[in-house]
């Protein structure tokens, strides 16, 4: 079971978990009609490095002005958390008409998943005080969110922040996943 912080800061932090975060799939305009398609993810976790988030916060919102906008970010990296029971049966994206690989929770693949030995995924079991059931982060599904949107979104949709070692574990495994090299 992981440890979390419930207290909320104004600034976006690595390890923050938010609910109902939107990802803009596309926005098109044709014949005077504008169409937006958004995917709403029930839960996401922030993966961007905390130092980058701190520096961006200083540039944007600190009382001390900076001489340039060199440290400003355009967006924040997040990844979705999926309900592990949906995940085992490959149904976690069924509302998007996507059928995913199944993992037998009782066999080796299921055990490896829960021990965080599968590079693509990170399993999290939240303490009872957090209203999230055991979940899996899929690193392959990372996406980015506009900084200002996420800061406003945080006010009403912050759930918790993963505690220090746990968020660093997620971050390190995410980086390893991104930098993997497939050899023939």
């Amino acid at each position, binding site marked *: 079971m992981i440890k979390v912080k419930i207290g909320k800061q104004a600034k976006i932090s690595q390890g923050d978990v938010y609910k109902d975060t939107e990802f803009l799939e596309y926005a098109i305009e044709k014949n*005077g*009609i504008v169409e*937006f*398609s958004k*995917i*709403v993810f029930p839960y996401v976790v922030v993966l961007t490095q905390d130092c980058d988030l701190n520096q961006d916060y200083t540039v944007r919102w600190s009382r001390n002005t900076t001489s340039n906008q060199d440290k400003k970010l355009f967006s924040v990296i997040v990844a979705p958390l*999926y309900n592990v029971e949906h995940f085992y049966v490959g*149904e976690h*994206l069924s509302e*998007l008409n996507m059928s995913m690989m199944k993992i037998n929770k009782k066999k080796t693949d299921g055990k490896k998943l829960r021990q965080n030995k599968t590079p693509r995924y990170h399993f999290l079991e939240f303490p009872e005080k957090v209203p999230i059931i055991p979940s899996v982060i899929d690193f392959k599904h990372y996406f980015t969110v506009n900084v200002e949107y996420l800061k406003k979104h945080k006010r009403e949709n912050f759930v918790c922040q993963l505690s220090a070692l746990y968020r660093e574990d997620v971050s390190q495994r995410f980086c390893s996943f991104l930098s993997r090299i497939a050899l023939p």
Partner: protein
Amino acid sequence: MNNDSPFSSEYDIGETTDIKVSQESRDKTIISDGIRKLIEDDIQYKLSKPRRKIIRAKIIDDKS
């Protein structure tokens, strides 16, 4: 069809339904607690998964 809704079709709560008619008023149909729970659980089940929302808007020329 309301494309903003997280669920895009009418609910199908199964082939059999258990709808009780109030003895006090035959004009009212009361959905049994069991069915209500099924519907609420189904909503929660669907809302606990990522879902797509499509929004369309018409551009109106500003003639001013």
